[in-house]
Every structure is written in C-alpha cells, then in structure tokens.
C-alpha cells in the first residue's frame, strides 16, 4: 500500500444506462454472471470429476470389449447386438447411467453451487456488489442446469463416438424389435437424451433447493442423490404402489418410449408434467429462500 495510483472518484462505479436499455443491460449482466459461474466451474476439480464419471463407463466398456475379443463373445446374443452397430452404445450408456451415475453427476454441481459459497464464505462477497440476489440466483441455477445438460450430452457423444469407431454406423434395432436407419437412430438418441434430461433437470432443481437450504455442500449433494432412492423405497411400501407413476425415478425411463416404433409419446408427456411438479416448486423454494435468507457466515 505505497502509492495511491489514482484518485478514487466520488461517483459510484455502477452508472445506470438509460431506462430503455435496461432490459438488454440486465440480460448482458446475466450473461456475464453465467460466464463467471462457468469459469468458476472450470477452475474446480469436482467439475471434471463429474464429467469424467459420465464418460468413463462407455469409454471403458468399448476399450475392454475391443481388448478381449474371444470367439465365445460372438455367440452371445447381447454381444452380437451390441457389436452390430456402434449406435447401440449411447442407448446402453443411458440404460446403465440413468438411475445412479448421471443423477450423482447432476447432484455434484447442483448441490454444491450455492452451498460452496457458504463454505467459502463468499456469499457476502458477491452479495455486496451490484448484482441483485435474483440475478445471482438465476446465473447459478442456469449454470447448474447447463452443466447437467453438458454432462448427459458429453457422455452420449463419447459413447456414440467410441461405439461407431468400433462397430460402425449401422441401423439400430429398437425396443419394439424393428430397425431404424442409422441417421434416424442418431436423431432418436439426441431426442432420448433430451427426454432423459427432463427428470434429471428436475432432480438438479431439487439439488439447488437443498444447496440453498442446507448451506452444506456435502449434505446437499448426498441428499440430492438420496432423494430419488428414498422415493423409490416409499413406492415399495404396501398400499403405496399407486404412487409409482409419479415417482421421479420412474421418469428416468420415460425416454425408452422414443426407442419404440411407433414412438410411444405417452410416458414422455407423463414424465414432462410429473417432473414439472417436482422441479418447479423446488426451484421456486430455492429462489425465495435465497432472496430472503440471512447471510451471516464467512
């Protein structure tokens, strides 16, 4: 603290633009806040842990399959089907990762994104700048949801690339037993991922709520992962079987409707509104809690 470089002016740094430009100014601010949230994600290990977890199973699966090509393998029906077209890999990936691995990855960031600020004590730092609490909430929520979307599509892309490289870009046998052409199958995979993202984003919203409420990263992440499992157990209680179609876990399979011919839109539409019932209130609670809560830590 030797020399004061410049005279500090008496004007506040946050000059306000004309009211007509307020809307675009606000959205520019939000974009900048999201960019910074993404930069923060990039600087943290857990981000890569999640993405690594997402792409590991398909990558390892393909590598080991290629390393161990014994004659017995080709006789296995399942194996024959898998190795007939690389486009089966992303479907397989979704089947195996949809129940636990991808929810964990979504929870890893959604459960952490607010609680980490509590942990670092930085909430007071960012809330005493010129961004409104609502804007900071939006930036964080959007970032967590973007991360979830990125994780699913990254896992899908890696599975597709590894599969196609190993077994070719061939037509795919749907769950109804009919075949769809390779380009159409690719489209279906993109759509199935989108469909799977509906319940996953709802879970991420629950993660955001728990992150705001618990103020503890580990607790929020664990509770977010545990939430669908608890619901699953609740669904097993005799007399509560009727709740089954409304469980979040049940919606994790709705994408399979797209893998039938003709396309079964029923489960997809059902999943959409059930997930909205989970996700939107969670998001609203998170928002209102964040707007009103005391920031006394740090």
């Amino acid at each position: 603290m030797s020399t004061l470089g410049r005279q500090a002016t008496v004007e506040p740094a946050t000059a306000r633009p004309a009211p007509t430009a307020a809307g675009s100014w606000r959205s520019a601010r939000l974009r900048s806040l999201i960019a910074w949230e993404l930069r923060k994600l990039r600087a943290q290990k857990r981000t890569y842990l999640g993405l690594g977890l997402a792409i590991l199973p398909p990558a390892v699966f393909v590598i080991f399959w290629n390393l161990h090509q014994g004659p017995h393998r080709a006789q296995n029906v399942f194996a024959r089907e898998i190795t007939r077209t690389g486009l089966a890999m992303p479907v397989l990936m979704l089947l195996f990762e949809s129940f636990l691995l991808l929810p964990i990855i979504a929870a890893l960031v959604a459960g952490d994104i607010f609680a980490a600020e509590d942990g670092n004590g930085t909430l007071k730092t960012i809330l005493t700048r010129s961004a409104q609490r609502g804007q900071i909430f939006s930036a964080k929520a959007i970032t967590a949801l973007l991360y979830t979307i990125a994780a699913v599509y990254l896992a899908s892309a890696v599975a597709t690339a590894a599969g196609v490289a190993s077994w070719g870009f061939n037509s795919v046998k749907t769950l109804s037993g009919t075949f769809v052409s390779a380009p159409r199958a690719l489209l279906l995979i993109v759509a199935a991922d989108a469909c799977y993202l509906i319940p996953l984003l709802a879970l991420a919203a629950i993660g955001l709520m728990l992150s705001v409420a618990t103020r503890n990263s580990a607790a929020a992440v664990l509770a977010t992962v545990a939430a669908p499992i608890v619901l699953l157990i609740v669904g097993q209680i005799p007399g509560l079987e009727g709740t089954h179609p409304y469980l979040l876990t049940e919606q994790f399979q709705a994408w399979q409707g797209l893998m039938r011919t003709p396309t079964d839109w029923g489960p997809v539409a059902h999943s959409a509104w059930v997930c909205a019932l989970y996700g939107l209130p969670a998001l609203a609670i998170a928002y209102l809690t964040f707007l009103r809560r005391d920031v006394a830590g740090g």
Partner: protein
Amino acid sequence: MSPDALSMAGAPQRDFDPQLVPVCARGLTKRYSEVLAVDRLDLTVPPGAVFGFLGPNGAGKTTTLRMLLGLIMPSAGSALLFGRDPIREGARALAGVAGFVEAPRFYPYLSGRRNLEMMAALDGNTSARARIDELLELVALSGAAKQRVGGYSHGMGQRLGIAAALLREPRLLILDEPTTGLDPGGIRDMRELILRLSAEGITILLSSHQLSEVQEICREVAIIRRGRIVYTGAIAQLHGGPDRAYRLQTSDNARAAELIGAQGAAQLLESEDGELRISATQAQVGELSLALGSAGIALYLLAPLQATLEDLFFSLTEDDDDARPALSIGGAGADQGRVGL
C-alpha cells in the same frame, strides 16, 4: 424516514438531504432466538468522516454492519445508505457503497486478479482492467496477483479485500476490524490508506474493538455495548468537560491535601504514595498553585493526568457492577449527561 429525523448527533442541526447521509439507522434491531444482538440502534454517519464504531467482542458491531449491507434482515427498524434501503432495494441500495464484514472472503481456487475481475463483473464494470492493476499495486499484491487466493496469507486476504472494495470507487467504505491479523507495518499502511481515502472525500465507517486503533484516525465515534449504543459523538469530547484530573506532587502532600479540602474548589480524588490526584478546572488549578506557594508548600509536579480512552471505554462497556473504577479519567462526572449507560 422524515428529513428532520436525520439530524446528526454530535453535529449542529441542519436540514439534510437523506441522499447525502452515508448511513442513517433508526431503531435497528436484530434478534437471534435468545440473543438480542443489536437492540434499537440509532446511528448516523455524517459525510466525509472517518467514523469509529467501537465495541468489545460480541457487542453487535458485525451484526449491525451486516444489516447495513443488506446481508441480514433486521428484526425491526431501518437503515438507509445515502437514503436508500438495502433491505428493500437489495444491491441497488449499495451503489457507491463498498466494504466487508469480518475477514474478506474470495474464491480460493481463483487467483487474486481473477477474483477482482469477477468482482468487477458483478459490479457490471466492464473496463476495470487498468484499475485492477492500480489497486493490486496499491495494496502491494502485484507480485501475488497470479497466485491462487487459497495460498494467500491472512494479511494478503485483508489487502485483497481492500482492493475489492476500492474497485467499486465507493463514497462510503464500511470496514469491519480491517487491521485484524495485520503485522505492524500492515496496520500502519492501513491507517495511512484510511486517512488518504478520507482526505479524498470517502466516508469511512470503521469498526474496531481497539480504542487505540480509532483514536488516531477518527474524529467521531459510536460506542456499542451489548447491542446498544452507549455513546455517540466527537472523540475529543470523550476526554471530558471543563474538569480534568491532575497529578500533584508537593514537598508536603498531607498539608496540600488539607489545603485542597479547606479551599473547597478543586476536588481531591485519591492520594497515592508521593502523589495526589485531583479534579479541577484550569482556573482552579491556577488558584491552587498560588495557594500552595503562599502556604510555603513547594510544587514538584502539577500536570494533567494522561487519561486514555481505554479507561473510558471500559467504564462504558463493562458491566455496571464491575469492580473496575470508572474514575481516573478527567471529568468523568461531566460526561454522564451524554453517556447513556
């Protein structure tokens, strides 16, 4: 808040535009289940001042500053910064206001510079690059700018906090015990910086539990004890009214004490080995010296007692039934009108 409610304690009453008053808190209260952390606190910080906010540990300083910054919701009362309410208006009310409560915190996995860049983005300040360089220079962190904040020492974090606050080019700077954990050089730098910023017209609200810290840089103080303001006004007035305490050493202390008793003007406070303590006005001290001379008592020493604010601070903030005497400060009696214990 009516404008006439904004008249300032310790300053002549004028008509104030609320937008010119950096801090105006009325009836500010914060209750944590059982603890009344801040209790109906009134606080006015006039523009351009280095305003000391003094109190012992747990008095409610940080809680008050958190409410001012809109970080926590008051249980009752209101606070206005330049006429704007941070509770109702959120960050919009913090235009021109910067600072931190307790230790400043940053993202440990980002560098110091990255952290400041992010603060600028949060401020909507897109052209802060050059200013960040200047500020890093100012707080002597240029060398560590690329280092992750997680590896910063406590003092470096404190300095980064100052840089982050100044990045907002504030009109009001709120600093909560900013010298905590700084080495003597850092404390001196901080003091110089505060004075320089103040000279530039920035109002500074400086909380501290150390009188010595604010004594040299604040003209006005508010003293808080158990959530209540117990004194507010000029720090000079804390030294007392016309009466002061004096040390007196003579060739015959016993006779001098008798003389003081007979004279009835100056008041004898106590007598220690070889020294008397009296309370008197300047005129009375003059008379006393003449009286002692004509009585043939030689005067060895007659000097005002260097009472520290520490003494007063204790008398204001310790428990009423505390054994520590609230004496030894000049004109303790004269203060009682203003000191609302």
